């Protein structure tokens, strides 16, 4: 079946797609970047020329077939070009997380044996130089931003632009070789290697072939009718498979324009200026945006507040139906049109969503209120389910069949099988080739027939055929009394409150559930400001009695809602505490994609967990923290442990009667 799909014409690699775009969309914008306050743009023809010069420069530096080229930096055209240029030379690009600390980077660079490292700026170069002493395989370090680099020893260090100029000057010498290398690329050549975030253990290098990327890009583009005149904003980490599919795979396949923000802080402004038509964001970004809208509305004049409330109530009622093309009365349609003019339109414009045709969110569950807020404004926000090993897409929601609690139907070309224990398996043309240098892991994840275990438990809804995810299969456990324990289910319910940033629920093999809560500094800080509550630090705010009281009311509300679910009613939270620090990837408590590392947290805060179960009222603890520059420090705190009321589940009542 599709697993053996053949390329369309000779389009069997990213460079081949680039050449086609340079021919067919020569004058259309391919890349934009905001530099010095102005959007600079490159057409496909210009981009292809730049990439070719860069590739020639790489050849002049001695890049060989199969070399690994690490790319570390934020999203900018230069970095995307370096990846395609590396592919042209027959090398394999390996984008890395720019915010990784040196030791994490050392592992990945050592594991893939990168000979070339392309860095964004001095910060990244410094990290690479730090670890170069241990890793002797790095031959050349290239950088984009010259700032602060003048005094460095440039024997093995080059400005990327110089390499491009060198390639341009040396084109007669290397053109022939480059053409030969490009012609050698097949549908089965490696396209990219991406490191998984590693919720458990060391990151693994996922090898994806041209077939994986191009087939997936093709299928998903057809599913959502993506076009050459679409616009996206490339702002998510380049090391993440989603960015590779959206900004490289789909962009090259469709020939649409990739816009790179000026810096991470200006992302919201740039989003507004570009107003992408195709947009992806993890739930956290949508949450942050919604929180900031709500905070600003709190400060608005009474009239504006009333208008906003009135029209948002209307939008909640009829917005999603209008978007899904369901019948809505004429009066409501007219009122909604008024609202579009007065509230929704301007609001979407401010958020940068005026032109979004297709919006996706994935990675974590999104709160139904948040999801519905955007849908009710008329933004076609959908959910998808995927992972690196699948080149993203496993399941996604088609237009007009969008719901907050499912992840949609099976993506085109993908087959899904649910095992007896509820674990989801899939097989698709996007299924990865292997884990680099790790045959055992490859074998344990992908069986000989090509089925891959996702590690997630879920089921298909019978009436709609939509897939629902319950939790990580390995996190689903049993409590001491034999009831099912699904922490994520409860955590997500908690995280839907704006005050709660993160929650970790414990209870596997125990007689009751307890939880750690992280408060959201923006939301709680704003609340404190409005209520004249003074605080000096995150820690102090997190320990404030009124904050604890608010969180307790949230927890109790969640308990009531959890009690409604017959299967999971035992997962109600009996005791909880509010952590004195934010869970952080630098401390290893979360992955770089901000997924909680349960085992690590359990080990690190074992004293707090013990406190939650032995009934004590407060616990003193000292915690090691890592600062952004890698230095360590420690903070200490005395945490209050809070009891929360629980509800007797329905079926227990029945049994008692």
């Amino acid at each position, binding site marked *: 079946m599709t697993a053996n799909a053949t390329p369309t014409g000779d389009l069997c690699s990213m460079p081949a797609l680039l050449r086609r775009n340079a021919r067919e969309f020569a004058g259309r914008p391919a890349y934009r970047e905001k530099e*010095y*306050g102005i959007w600079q743009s490159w057409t496909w023809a210009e981009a292809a020329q730049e990439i070719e010069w860069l590739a020639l420069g790489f050849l002049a530096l001695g890049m060989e077939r199969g070399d690994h080229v690490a790319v570390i930096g934020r999203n900018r055209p230069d970095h995307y070009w370096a990846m395609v240029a590396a592919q042209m030379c027959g090398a394999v690009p390996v984008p890395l997380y720019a915010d990784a600390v040196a030791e994490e980077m050392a592992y990945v660079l050592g594991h893939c044996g990168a000979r070339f490292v392309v860095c964004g700026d001095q910060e990244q170069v410094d990290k690479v130089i730090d670890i170069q002493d241990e890793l002797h395989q790095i031959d050349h370090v290239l950088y984009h931003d010259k700032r602060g680099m003048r005094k460095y020893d440039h024997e093995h260090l080059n400005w990327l632009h110089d390499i491009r100029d060198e390639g341009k000057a040396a084109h007669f010498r290397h053109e022939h070789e480059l053409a030969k290398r490009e012609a050698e690329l097949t549908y089965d050549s490696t396209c990219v290697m991406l490191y998984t975030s590693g919720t458990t253990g060391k990151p693994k290098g996922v090898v994806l072939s041209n077939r994986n990327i191009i087939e997936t890009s093709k299928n998903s583009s057809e599913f959502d009718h993506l076009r050459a005149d679409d616009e996206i904003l490339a702002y998510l980490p380049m090391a993440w498979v989603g960015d590779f599919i959206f900004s490289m795979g789909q962009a090259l396949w469709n020939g649409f324009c990739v816009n790179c923000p000026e810096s991470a802080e200006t992302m919201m402004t740039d989003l507004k200026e570009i107003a992408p038509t195709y947009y992806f964001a993890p739930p956290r970004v949508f949450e942050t945006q919604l929180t900031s809208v709500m905070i600003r509305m709190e400060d608005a004049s009474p009239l504006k507040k009333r208008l906003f409330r009135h029209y948002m109530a209307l939008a909640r009622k009829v917005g999603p139906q209008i978007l899904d093309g369901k019948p809505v009365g004429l009066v409501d349609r007219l009122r909604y049109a008024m609202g579009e003019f007065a509230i929704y339109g301007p609001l979407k414009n401010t958020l940068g969503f005026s032109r979004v045709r297709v919006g996706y969110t994935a990675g974590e569950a999104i709160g139904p209120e948040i999801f519905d807020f955007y849908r009710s404004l008329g933004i076609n926000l959908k959910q998808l389910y995927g992972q690196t090993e699948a080149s993203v897409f496993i399941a996604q929601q088609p237009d007009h069949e969008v719901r907050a609690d499912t992840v949609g139907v099976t993506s085109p070309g993908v087959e899904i099988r649910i095992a007896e224990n509820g674990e989801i398996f899939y097989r698709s043309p996007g299924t990865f080739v292997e884990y680099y240098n790790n045959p055992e892991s490859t074998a344990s994840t992908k069986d000989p027939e090509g089925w891959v275990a996702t590690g997630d438990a879920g089921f298909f809804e019978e009436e709609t055929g939509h897939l629902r995810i319950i939790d990580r299969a390995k996190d689903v456990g049993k409590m001491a009394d034999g009831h099912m324990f699904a922490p994520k289910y409860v955590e997500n319910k908690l995280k839907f409150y704006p005050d709660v940033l993160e929650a970790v629920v414990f209870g596997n093999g125990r007689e009751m559930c307890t939880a750690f809560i992280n408060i959201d500094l923006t939301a709680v800080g704003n609340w404190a400001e409005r209520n004249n509550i003074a605080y000096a630090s995150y820690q102090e705010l997190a320990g404030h009695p009124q904050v604890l009281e608010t969180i307790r009311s949230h927890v109790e509300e969640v308990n009531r809602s959890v009690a409604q679910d017959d299967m999971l009613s035992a997962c109600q939270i009996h005791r909880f505490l509010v952590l004195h620090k934010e869970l952080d990837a630098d401390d290893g408590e979360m992955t770089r994609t901000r997924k909680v590392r349960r085992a690590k947290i359990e080990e690190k805060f074992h004293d707090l967990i013990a406190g939650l179960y032995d009934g004590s009222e407060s616990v003193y603890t000292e915690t090691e923290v890592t600062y952004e520059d890698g230095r360590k420090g420690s903070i200490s705190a005395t945490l209050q442990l809070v009891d929360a009321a629980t509800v007797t589940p329905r079926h227990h009542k029945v049994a008692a009667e």
Partner: protein
Amino acid sequence: MKDLYEPYVTDDGRTIGGCLMEMKNITLKFGGVVAIKDISFDIREGEIRAIIGPNGAGKSSMLNVISGFYTPSEGEVWYKGSVRPMMKPYEVARQGVGRTFQNIALFEGMSVLDNVMTGRLTHMKASLWEQAIWWGKAEREEVHNREQVEKIIDFLEIQAIRKTPVGRLPYGLKKRVELARALAAEPSLLLLDEPMAGMNVEEKEDMSRFILDVNDEFGTTIALIEHDMGVVMDLSDRVVVMDYGKKIGDGTPDEVRGNQDVIDAYLGVPHA
């Protein structure tokens, strides 16, 4: 005397050149109050020169003499090889002396971009008439000035607040905007009056990095007043120490640190 100003290269690879400014026997009096008493020191091209001292030692007065805001009662200011005649502060600024202020002096109602653009004033040559017509010289000039300003905005990493009114910014960022405005004038000598006052450790670290970067990237000579001794000793190539309007020490951070007069001035000695 001449070989005293032989260029040399510092440990971190910066080249320190000849004498850029020399203060010769400066005395400054306000009526009967003697703020500065017979002080001489020099500032060399490309170096970071700190002026330190306890409160009321006359540091800010000294900076005001350098920037031309005060005219010394006695003594000479030598700048780029000649004695500087009596000048208005804006004339001094035109000669390439830029500064920031101890108490932030920005236009609160204007955006960051506009504030920084005012720093380009000394580089605007178009006449009022040409500005009014706009087309031609004034437009070309504006484009060039904006480009320079954008480079500085990029350099100091304040892109995200480009259009934000200064009044809405936190203190640390205002300080950075002030630095940006001073840099926009492309000064050869940059005076910083307590650039880190009132900042937390993280903001101080950022500011220190920017000061070093400015010095390194643009080769700007910097004279700064600062209270945080740790910062001063880390940043500067040479330090002048003042106390009660007199100079009590001058030299590298290590030399100054070992100077008994300086230790006394900071730790205090019984005044017999």
